[in-house]
């Protein structure tokens, strides 16, 4: 026995023997039963997952590449105008958006490259990407707007021309316009009602039956297939009111469709507002409503905004309810009209329509282009939503510290 072993701790003999008998228990990898099977299984799972992810990446990349011929076709000769209401203004907007996207892509890549080079040169792993100053951003924004307006007749013609039913060369200008207009219209309904209902749920809910009814209503809305919304819109606006297909009906139905999402996320963000922040406001003599308007809502705003952006993404993506409420056509005269009581299709509907009843000879290219525009829009909204969500964290902290100071 070594000297360090204290007296009285001499182990019983039989235990010692038992230990020695087990000494030869294996430790080597090769000795473990079933290890081989596991390795094969893990490889199989990895392959499957890689194939799954690879399929989506390949599909999206392929789609963007096929559509890019339409999206990047900048023309030196002016794209002819159809001569319809608002066309020039819409072209200006599209053109500015295209150039803004380009500028953003260039700047973002530039920042990343410069940041990486600095990190490599200075061996400082935490060096941040360089930032642009406020003036530089303003100057670039101004330049983008100017260039966009000047070159508004030279943007890819696919983005600014009218669709064509039977001949090649149709564009999706009105579809882009309608898609964005739908987003605005339906948000105009979702924002007040959705946030109002969320505030009610999070802060003012007193009556139990009302809360129960609201929860049930939201659960029901969330569980309905979108085609059912379409049927409802069709029944109310097209059949009962005999208003025909209209953007208004479509926007209303989409707003209804988005309510559960917006109320859900908004309520969550409102509930995430720390009690201390509200208490601080109450302690300063603010009423419950003042506190909600001036403290709670601003604090939860990034979360609410990201819910709205997500709901915009659904507006872009939805097709079935719009086919039944806003129709599948673009009428030449009101292609860019702001009148919400006209019908009109969105990009998603166009993609379906071209394939199911379109007669144009280049419908494969038009589909690819439409799908690419749609995917780019979705990508941007998703990026926006996640940026906002992250921004929310930073904002929240700032708000707390500012309030903390105020109360001190």
């Amino acid at each position, binding site marked *: 026995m070594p000297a360090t072993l*204290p007296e009285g*701790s001499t*182990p*019983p003999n039989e235990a010692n023997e038992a*230990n020695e008998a087990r*000494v030869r228990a294996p430790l*080597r*990898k090769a000795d*473990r*039963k079933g290890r081989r099977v596991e390795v094969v299984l893990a490889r199989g799972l990895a392959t499957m997952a890689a194939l799954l992810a690879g399929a989506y990446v390949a599909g999206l990349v392929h789609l963007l590449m096929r559509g890019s011929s339409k999206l990047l076709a900048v023309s030196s000769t002016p794209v002819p105008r159809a001569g319809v209401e608002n066309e020039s203004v819409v072209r200006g907007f599209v053109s500015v958006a295209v150039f803004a996207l380009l500028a953003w892509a260039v700047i973002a890549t530039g920042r990343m490259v410069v940041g990486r080079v600095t990190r490599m040169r200075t061996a400082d792993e935490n060096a941040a990407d360089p930032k642009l100053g406020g003036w530089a951003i303003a100057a670039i924004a101004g330049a983008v707007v100017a260039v966009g307006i000047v070159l508004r007749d030279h943007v890819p013609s696919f983005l600014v021309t009218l669709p064509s039913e039977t001949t090649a060369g149709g564009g999706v200008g009105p579809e882009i316009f309608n898609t964005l207009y739908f987003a605005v219209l339906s948000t105009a309904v979702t924002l007040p009602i959705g946030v109002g209902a969320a505030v009610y749920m999070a802060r003012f809910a007193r009556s139990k039956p009302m809360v129960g009814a609201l929860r049930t209503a939201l659960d029901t809305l969330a569980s309905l297939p979108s085609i059912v919304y379409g049927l409802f819109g069709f029944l109310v606006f097209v059949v009962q009111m005999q208003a025909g297909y209209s953007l208004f009906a479509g926007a209303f139905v989409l707003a209804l469709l988005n309510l559960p999402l917006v109320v859900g996320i908004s309520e969550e963000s409102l509930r995430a507002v720390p009690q201390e922040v509200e208490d601080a406001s109450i302690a300063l003599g603010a009423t419950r409503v003042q506190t909600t308007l001036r403290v709670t809502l601003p604090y939860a705003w990034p979360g609410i905004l990201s819910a709205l952006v997500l709901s915009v993404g659904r507006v872009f993506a939805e097709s079935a309810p719009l086919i039944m409420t806003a129709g599948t056509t673009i009428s030449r005269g009101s292609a860019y009209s702001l009148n919400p009581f006209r019908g009109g299709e969105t990009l998603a509907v166009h993609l379906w329509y071209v394939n199911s009843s379109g007669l144009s000879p280049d419908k494969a290219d038009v589909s690819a282009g439409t799908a690419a525009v749609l995917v780019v829009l979705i990508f941007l909204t998703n990026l926006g939503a996640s940026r906002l969500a992250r921004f929310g964290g930073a904002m929240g902290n700032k708000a707390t510290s500012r309030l903390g100071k105020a109360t001190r």
Partner: protein
Amino acid sequence: MKHPPIDAPADAKMRAVGLSVQYGEKVAVNEVSLSLLSNEVLAFIGPSGCGKSTFLRTLNRMNDSIEGVKVKGSVELDGEDIYAADVDPVLVRRRVGMVFQKSNPFPKSIFENVAYGLRIAGVRDRGILAEKVERALTQAALWDEVKDRLDESGLGLSGGQQQRLCIARALAVEPEVLLMDEPASALDPIATAKIEELISELRKTLSIAIVTHSMQQAARISQRTGFFYMGKLVELDDTTTIFTKPNERATEDYITGRFG
């Protein structure tokens, strides 16, 4: 690099030689050498963040799954380096069991909790399973309390019972060494006393290394005690020596409550 001299008797169950652990830039355990003898209870004490838990987790390679952890030096189990390239950490853990600070029974029945390790190791025979589960639960002094409700969820037990269930679970696979990371820190005094009694009983069949924040506990249950401070093993000696006349100033300061 010369390692500080360690007492490494031939029959040491486990032996760490010049063991260092790094989390990214931070050195959590710095050049620790010590041995764990057969059938002893070895306690580690020290202020929180001193590296004692991290060190304990290196003894059955539980740190492997944490990202950015680098282990230098060697740990031997019966003379075999468990950090050798061809050693399977899974097999190491079957011989060196572990009980955690927070009891973590699986959301399964009491029986299945204890049988889990056996099933993992490939035991299918229902009779053998039943027999080994009973033996483990008896060893953990839990059998009488749960024998009538083996099919009930392990989560329905009290905190102390849950921790003993976790000990039974670890014992069922018949490990040679049991590592315990503050096993009683979340328990009331009565449950703690039961666990301590259990530890003294278990020493007859296996070696135990235990991390504890309670010096009284270390004094009650261990034969030897090591004092960790800032990632280093400051002193390791008989428990009575450590608590009555420690050699190092730092140990004395800690024990007399001047810091920690």
